[in-house]
Protein backbone atom coordinates (compact mmCIF):
# COMPACT_ATOMS: atom_id res chain seq x y z
CA UNK A 1 0.00 0.00 0.00
CA UNK A 2 1.03 3.58 -0.69
CA UNK A 3 0.78 5.93 2.30
CA UNK A 4 0.65 9.69 1.72
CA UNK A 5 1.09 12.31 4.42
CA UNK A 6 -0.01 15.95 4.35
CA UNK A 7 0.41 19.19 6.29
CA UNK A 8 2.01 18.94 9.74
CA UNK A 9 1.71 15.17 9.76
CA UNK A 10 3.92 15.12 6.65
CA UNK A 11 6.40 17.53 8.25
CA UNK A 12 6.43 15.66 11.54
CA UNK A 13 7.07 12.28 9.90
CA UNK A 14 9.58 13.91 7.54
CA UNK A 15 8.35 12.41 4.30
CA UNK A 16 5.40 12.88 2.01
CA UNK A 17 4.81 9.24 1.25
CA UNK A 18 6.04 5.72 1.82
CA UNK A 19 5.28 2.26 0.46
CA UNK A 20 4.40 -0.61 2.74
CA UNK A 21 3.39 -4.23 2.36
CA UNK A 22 0.28 -4.61 4.46
CA UNK A 23 1.01 -6.82 7.52
CA UNK A 24 -1.62 -9.52 8.09
CA UNK A 25 -2.61 -8.04 11.45
CA UNK A 26 -3.57 -4.75 9.79
CA UNK A 27 -7.24 -5.00 8.89
CA UNK A 28 -8.65 -1.54 9.63
CA UNK A 29 -7.44 2.05 9.35
CA UNK A 30 -6.95 1.99 13.12
CA UNK A 31 -4.71 -1.08 12.84
CA UNK A 32 -2.67 0.68 10.19
CA UNK A 33 -2.28 3.82 12.35
CA UNK A 34 -1.11 1.60 15.24
CA UNK A 35 1.35 -0.18 12.96
CA UNK A 36 2.73 3.12 11.55
CA UNK A 37 3.03 4.63 15.04
CA UNK A 38 5.45 1.81 15.95
CA UNK A 39 7.76 2.56 12.98
CA UNK A 40 9.56 5.57 14.50
CA UNK A 41 9.35 8.24 17.16
CA UNK A 42 8.34 10.75 14.47
CA UNK A 43 5.48 8.51 13.35
CA UNK A 44 4.38 8.06 16.97
CA UNK A 45 4.34 11.81 17.57
CA UNK A 46 2.59 12.68 14.31
CA UNK A 47 -0.12 10.06 14.76
CA UNK A 48 -0.45 10.27 18.54
CA UNK A 49 -3.56 12.39 18.89
CA UNK A 50 -5.96 10.26 16.88
CA UNK A 51 -8.77 12.85 16.97
CA UNK A 52 -6.55 15.03 14.73
CA UNK A 53 -5.71 12.19 12.35
CA UNK A 54 -8.00 12.02 9.31
CA UNK A 55 -7.74 9.30 6.71
CA UNK A 56 -8.79 8.86 3.09
CA UNK A 57 -8.69 5.44 1.44
CA UNK A 58 -8.39 5.60 -2.33
CA UNK A 59 -9.11 9.34 -2.17
CA UNK A 60 -12.36 8.98 -0.20
CA UNK A 61 -12.73 10.15 3.42
CA UNK A 62 -13.15 7.20 5.77
CA UNK A 63 -13.36 6.64 9.52
CA UNK A 64 -10.79 4.70 11.53
CA UNK A 65 -12.92 1.57 11.50
CA UNK A 66 -12.85 1.23 7.71
CA UNK A 67 -11.00 -1.75 6.17
CA UNK A 68 -7.70 -1.34 4.33
CA UNK A 69 -6.28 -3.59 1.63
CA UNK A 70 -2.89 -4.03 0.04
CA UNK A 71 -2.81 -1.86 -3.07
CA UNK A 72 -4.89 0.88 -1.43
CA UNK A 73 -3.80 4.50 -1.60
CA UNK A 74 -4.02 5.67 2.00
CA UNK A 75 -3.75 9.37 2.82
CA UNK A 76 -3.19 10.55 6.39
CA UNK A 77 -3.68 14.21 7.27
CA UNK A 78 -4.92 16.66 9.91
CA UNK A 79 -8.40 18.23 9.69
CA UNK A 80 -8.63 20.25 6.48
CA UNK A 81 -8.42 24.07 6.53
CA UNK A 82 -9.09 25.22 2.98
CA UNK A 83 -11.79 27.56 1.75
Amino acid at each position, binding site marked *: MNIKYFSWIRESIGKSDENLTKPDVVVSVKDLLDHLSALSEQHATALGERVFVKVAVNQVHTDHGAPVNDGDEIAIFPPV*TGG
Partner: protein
Amino acid sequence: MALISVQSEDFDINSEIATLKGDNKDVGAIVTFTGTVRDIGGTLQSMTLEHYPGMTEKELERIAGVAEERWPLLGCRVIHRFGTLAPGDNIVLVIALSTHREAAFKAADFLMDYLKSSAPFWKKEQIGEDENWVQAKEKDETALKRW
Protein backbone atom coordinates in the same frame (compact mmCIF):
# COMPACT_ATOMS: atom_id res chain seq x y z
CA MET B 1 -22.28 19.53 -14.55
CA ALA B 2 -20.24 21.73 -12.25
CA LEU B 3 -16.94 23.17 -13.42
CA ILE B 4 -14.12 22.49 -10.96
CA SER B 5 -10.60 23.94 -11.00
CA VAL B 6 -7.69 23.54 -8.62
CA GLN B 7 -5.07 26.01 -9.73
CA SER B 8 -2.28 28.31 -8.60
CA GLU B 9 -3.42 31.23 -10.83
CA ASP B 10 -5.91 33.86 -9.77
CA PHE B 11 -9.47 33.89 -11.11
CA ASP B 12 -11.73 36.54 -12.64
CA ILE B 13 -15.31 36.69 -11.34
CA ASN B 14 -16.78 38.61 -14.30
CA SER B 15 -15.49 36.18 -16.88
CA GLU B 16 -16.45 33.13 -14.81
CA ILE B 17 -20.04 34.43 -14.52
CA ALA B 18 -20.13 35.20 -18.26
CA THR B 19 -18.97 31.66 -19.11
CA LEU B 20 -21.54 30.03 -16.82
CA LYS B 21 -24.43 32.22 -17.91
CA GLY B 22 -23.76 32.23 -21.65
CA ASP B 23 -27.06 33.23 -23.26
CA ASN B 24 -29.21 31.18 -20.89
CA LYS B 25 -32.26 33.36 -20.35
CA ASP B 26 -33.64 31.12 -17.58
CA VAL B 27 -31.01 32.51 -15.20
CA GLY B 28 -32.42 35.05 -12.76
CA ALA B 29 -30.08 34.76 -9.79
CA ILE B 30 -26.29 34.55 -9.55
CA VAL B 31 -24.57 34.17 -6.18
CA THR B 32 -20.79 34.29 -5.83
CA PHE B 33 -18.63 33.66 -2.80
CA THR B 34 -14.99 34.73 -2.79
CA GLY B 35 -12.68 33.78 0.04
CA THR B 36 -9.58 35.94 0.51
CA VAL B 37 -6.39 35.80 2.60
CA ARG B 38 -6.99 37.72 5.86
CA ASP B 39 -4.28 39.50 7.78
CA ILE B 40 -6.18 40.93 10.75
CA GLY B 41 -3.12 41.58 12.88
CA GLY B 42 -1.16 43.07 9.98
CA THR B 43 1.71 40.63 10.53
CA LEU B 44 1.05 37.94 7.91
CA GLN B 45 3.69 37.74 5.20
CA SER B 46 2.16 34.98 3.15
CA MET B 47 -0.02 31.91 3.27
CA THR B 48 0.77 28.61 1.61
CA LEU B 49 -1.98 26.21 0.61
CA GLU B 50 -1.07 22.54 0.32
CA HIS B 51 -3.56 20.12 -1.20
CA TYR B 52 -3.97 16.47 -2.20
CA PRO B 53 -3.82 16.38 -6.01
CA GLY B 54 -6.28 13.86 -7.39
CA MET B 55 -8.47 13.70 -4.33
CA THR B 56 -9.05 17.48 -4.26
CA GLU B 57 -10.69 17.58 -7.69
CA LYS B 58 -12.71 14.43 -6.89
CA GLU B 59 -13.92 15.84 -3.58
CA LEU B 60 -14.91 19.21 -5.08
CA GLU B 61 -16.79 17.41 -7.86
CA ARG B 62 -18.57 15.25 -5.30
CA ILE B 63 -19.67 18.27 -3.23
CA ALA B 64 -20.80 20.18 -6.32
CA GLY B 65 -22.74 17.09 -7.44
CA VAL B 66 -24.61 17.01 -4.14
CA ALA B 67 -25.48 20.72 -4.51
CA GLU B 68 -26.73 20.13 -8.05
CA GLU B 69 -28.95 17.30 -6.85
CA ARG B 70 -30.40 19.34 -3.98
CA TRP B 71 -31.10 22.62 -5.81
CA PRO B 72 -32.21 23.39 -9.38
CA LEU B 73 -28.97 25.00 -10.52
CA LEU B 74 -28.33 26.38 -14.01
CA GLY B 75 -24.59 26.59 -13.41
CA CYS B 76 -22.09 25.84 -10.70
CA ARG B 77 -18.39 26.74 -10.52
CA VAL B 78 -15.74 26.01 -7.90
CA ILE B 79 -12.17 27.32 -8.16
CA HIS B 80 -9.69 26.73 -5.34
CA ARG B 81 -6.15 28.03 -5.46
CA PHE B 82 -3.04 26.38 -4.01
CA GLY B 83 0.54 27.55 -3.50
CA THR B 84 1.80 30.71 -1.83
CA LEU B 85 -0.58 33.65 -1.58
CA ALA B 86 -0.23 37.19 -0.20
CA PRO B 87 -2.61 38.97 2.22
CA GLY B 88 -5.70 40.10 0.33
CA ASP B 89 -5.27 37.50 -2.42
CA ASN B 90 -8.19 35.39 -3.60
CA ILE B 91 -8.28 31.80 -2.31
CA VAL B 92 -11.57 30.31 -3.42
CA LEU B 93 -14.50 31.13 -5.69
CA VAL B 94 -17.91 29.48 -5.67
CA ILE B 95 -20.66 30.53 -8.09
CA ALA B 96 -24.23 29.22 -8.24
CA LEU B 97 -26.76 30.19 -10.92
CA SER B 98 -30.46 29.49 -10.69
CA THR B 99 -33.82 30.80 -11.79
CA HIS B 100 -34.62 32.06 -8.30
CA ARG B 101 -32.49 33.54 -5.56
CA GLU B 102 -33.21 31.01 -2.83
CA ALA B 103 -31.61 28.08 -4.66
CA ALA B 104 -28.56 30.15 -5.67
CA PHE B 105 -27.94 31.43 -2.13
CA LYS B 106 -28.45 28.04 -0.50
CA ALA B 107 -26.26 26.16 -2.97
CA ALA B 108 -23.35 28.62 -2.64
CA ASP B 109 -23.62 28.61 1.17
CA PHE B 110 -23.79 24.79 1.23
CA LEU B 111 -20.83 24.44 -1.14
CA MET B 112 -18.66 26.63 1.10
CA ASP B 113 -19.64 24.77 4.28
CA TYR B 114 -18.83 21.41 2.71
CA LEU B 115 -15.69 22.58 0.98
CA LYS B 116 -14.39 23.99 4.29
CA SER B 117 -14.76 20.67 6.05
CA SER B 118 -14.00 18.11 3.37
CA ALA B 119 -11.83 19.50 0.55
CA PRO B 120 -8.24 18.35 1.26
CA PHE B 121 -6.49 21.71 1.62
CA TRP B 122 -4.22 22.85 4.46
CA LYS B 123 -3.16 26.42 5.14
CA LYS B 124 0.18 27.43 6.56
CA GLU B 125 0.78 31.02 7.66
CA GLN B 126 4.16 32.72 7.41
CA ILE B 127 4.45 35.36 10.16
CA GLY B 128 7.92 36.86 10.59
CA GLU B 129 10.30 33.94 11.12
CA ASP B 130 7.46 31.60 12.14
CA GLU B 131 5.41 29.20 10.11
CA ASN B 132 2.14 27.94 11.58
CA TRP B 133 -0.37 25.48 10.24
CA VAL B 134 -3.85 26.94 10.59
CA GLN B 135 -5.99 24.98 13.03
CA ALA B 136 -9.35 23.60 11.91
CA LYS B 137 -12.35 25.27 13.52
CA GLU B 138 -14.95 23.25 15.33
CA LYS B 139 -17.61 25.60 13.99
CA ASP B 140 -16.80 24.39 10.47
CA GLU B 141 -17.94 20.95 11.53
CA THR B 142 -21.06 22.21 13.30
CA ALA B 143 -21.93 24.35 10.24
CA LEU B 144 -22.64 21.10 8.38
CA LYS B 145 -25.55 20.30 10.67
CA ARG B 146 -27.54 23.06 8.96
CA TRP B 147 -27.87 21.02 5.77
